[in-house]
């Protein structure tokens, strides 16, 4: 049956992006859904990726994280997710934040992520790589200029088409709509594990990662992290159609 409850949102970037703020099951106009599509963040590594397909998809820009992040901006991503490995990578994150002006999420070992906490000029979503006490991995946002209000997000990740992570996201959204205060936080869904077995060509990578993103948004994701530009494009287009934008 239909449920309606205003859920929390998190303001990102320089206050010009927001994730969450849903009030219904995903996209349901019949329940009065808010017309907002999930944000799409493109992945950037601080080192050259091993997968030749990824290098090819970004026309060689993967050797420089700043260039790579700029390509994400040019193709319309709402932000980037920088995978850091050690504290020195915070300089890369700072450069990406300044150069792109986009919201930057940071993911990696706790020590490396913590080193990014004082970077100025953007709001970071810091993803703790270790599971929380309740089995969920949490994402926290902090940094300069963050708006008042909740600053917590759920981070869900899983390998499409295995259903567990998608069920978890749907469960978080449903429980939030039922009034569970812990669950009432936007959901960030990292779909990149779909790459774990590798892809043979760009088309299959785009199609399968795009399907993973579609499944994530139908499960309640408010923000998605993707690896391929084709999937990012599909996720944005599908999100706009489902949100009736």
């Amino acid at each position, binding site marked *: *049956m*239909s449920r309606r409850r205003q859920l929390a949102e998190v303001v990102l970037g320089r206050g010009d992006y927001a994730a969450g703020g849903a009030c219904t*099951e995903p*996209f*349901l*106009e*019949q329940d009065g859904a808010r017309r907002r599509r999930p944000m799409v963040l493109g992945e950037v590594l601080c080192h050259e990726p091993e997968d030749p397909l990824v290098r090819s998809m970004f026309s060689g820009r993967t050797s420089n994280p700043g260039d790579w992040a700029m390509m994400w901006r040019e193709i319309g991503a709402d932000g980037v997710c920088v995978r850091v490995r050690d504290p020195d990578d915070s300089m890369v994150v700072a450069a990406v934040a300044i150069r792109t002006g986009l919201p930057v999420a940071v993911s990696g070992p706790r020590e490396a992520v913590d080193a990014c906490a004082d970077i100025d000029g953007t709001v970071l979503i810091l993803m703790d790589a270790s599971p929380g006490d309740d089995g969920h991995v949490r994402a926290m946002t902090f940094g300069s200029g963050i708006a008042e209000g909740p600053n917590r997000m759920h981070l869900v990740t899983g390998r499409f*088409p*295995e*259903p567990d992570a*998608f069920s978890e996201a749907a469960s978080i959204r449903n429980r939030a709509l039922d009034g569970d205060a812990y669950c009432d936080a936007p959901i960030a869904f990292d779909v990149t594990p779909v790459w774990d077995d590798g892809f043979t060509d760009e*088309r*299959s990578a785009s*199609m*399968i990662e*795009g*399907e993973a993103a*579609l*499944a994530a948004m*139908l499960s309640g994701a408010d923000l998605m992290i993707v690896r391929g530009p084709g999937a990012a494009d*599909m996720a944005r287009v*599908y999100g706009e*159609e*489902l949100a*009736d934008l």
Partner: protein
Amino acid sequence: MTSFERASFALSVSDAMDEDSMAERVARIATIASVTPSLGLICVRDDAMDAGMLTAAALAASGTGLGIVLESDDVGNLAAAASAIPCSEPVLCSQNGDQMALAVMASTLGAPVILSCESLNGLMELSSAAEAGGCRDIMLNPMVRNMKQCLESTVAMRRLAARIPSADRPLVVRAWSGEYALAMASVSVMRGGRLAVLDDLDPQGCEVLDSLISNFSA
């Protein structure tokens, strides 16, 4: 109880193809189906609007051992083809034809039927009337044209089904070709749709849809 307790999908073949192209197309679908368990049916489309050509195409498709969906705007053509093929229970569909005539024919032949209507109330009325007329296996096609409509209609029908028995029927989505068709079928599957009929999808797309059905269909 219906024939479509488990979700599945169909690829289609046009009866307007020449004999060789049709044989090639049918063989291609059968090959994909051999490694794609959810690809359980071939939809034979009456693009030629000719009973003889539809029957010939249905006969070609029936040799695969897959289930058959017969699709025509002319209910008379469906009757001719359904009576001719050895497959005892082709699924009958006439998106733009007379739905009550279709239901009467399905009842007479003892065949499963897909009833189509853009209005959900209309679908429920059709479903009740077809059941009263003796139809056994009834599926409902809300004739959606895009992903958004598919999401809204599928959820609305499932909510109705929780309250009204005549709405509790397997839902069908009809999509075209390529990645957008795959996306529509995916939305349907993830919200409880039971049958996706697509014009075409490459083997990789079929594999993705098969995985989705295996993992996500209720």
